[in-house]
């Protein structure tokens, strides 16, 4: 079992590294899905099958599809890849990488001081999670639902085409007429 964890971890890390270094957004997205599936595997082996399922359904399924839709609407072509190549010069990522390296070193320092290992055993099934969720965390659930509602309304509101002034206005009117 432990081996599964290490393998999944390696896959997750590698694919995530690919995510952040790809020039083509669709490639990155695919790597991202790989990464999420690997993480779902890790959840599963850690004894959280419910979460693993959600990871696959919601994250890899729904959210990533959202990305795909967005990318389709953006319709990025080859020139976008070229632009990414220009943007991703070593000079531009050297700084962030150093910064993150320092932070990571600090993480390691902290992690090295924690102890204990996972208990093994049967883990926690959906039942326990559900009981806790609708008992102790009921308010949180309500808040989360409100957040989702807000996100829905927000996304709808922001995403719709707004009439603009000047040329943009012209353009948008043209867009509308094309649709018709």
């Amino acid at each position, binding site marked *: 079992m432990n081996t599964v964890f*290490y393998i999944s971890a390696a896959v997750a890390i590698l694919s995530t590294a690919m995510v952040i270094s790809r020039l083509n957004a669709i490639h990155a997205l695919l790597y991202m899905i790989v990464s999420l599936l690997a993480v779902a595997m890790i959840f599963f082996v850690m004894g959280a099958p419910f979460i693993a399922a959600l990871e696959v359904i919601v994250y890899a399924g729904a959210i990533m599809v959202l*990305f795909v839709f967005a990318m389709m609407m953006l319709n990025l072509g080859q020139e976008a890849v070229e632009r990414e190549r220009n943007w991703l010069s070593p000079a531009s990522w050297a700084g962030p990488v150093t910064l993150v390296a320092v932070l*990571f070193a600090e993480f390691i320092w902290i992690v090295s001081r924690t102890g204990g290992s996972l208990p093994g055993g049967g883990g926690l099934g959906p039942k326990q999670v559900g009981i806790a969720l609708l008992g102790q965390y009921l308010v949180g659930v309500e808040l989360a639902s409100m957040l989702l509602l807000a996100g829905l309304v927000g996304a709808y509101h922001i995403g719709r085409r707004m009439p603009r002034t000047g040329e943009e206005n012209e353009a948008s009117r043209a867009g509308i007429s094309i649709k018709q």
Partner: protein
Amino acid sequence: MITVPIEHVILMAAILFSLGLTGVLARRNVLFILLSIEVMLNAAGIAFVAAGARWAQADGQIMFLFILTMAAAEVAVGLAIILQYYRHTGTLDVDAMGGGRR
């Protein structure tokens, strides 16, 4: 179930988190930044679930649920903004955003 030391799980989460952070800081494309944020959220979720598993409590998983909810909302709104932005400016360069302000 697995019995690896908890540090390994946390370390893995830390690596993912760092990678995500690197993506946020190094990429100029908003879309990549959004993806990287997802990576970071995911990493945080791993840490939660691992901690929950360590103490055999459901709370870690519930926190992951909340993170998931938040991520969904965030992505929805974030992508809407990106679309709108792109429609207006024709670029996804984050450095061009708000850079005109003083």
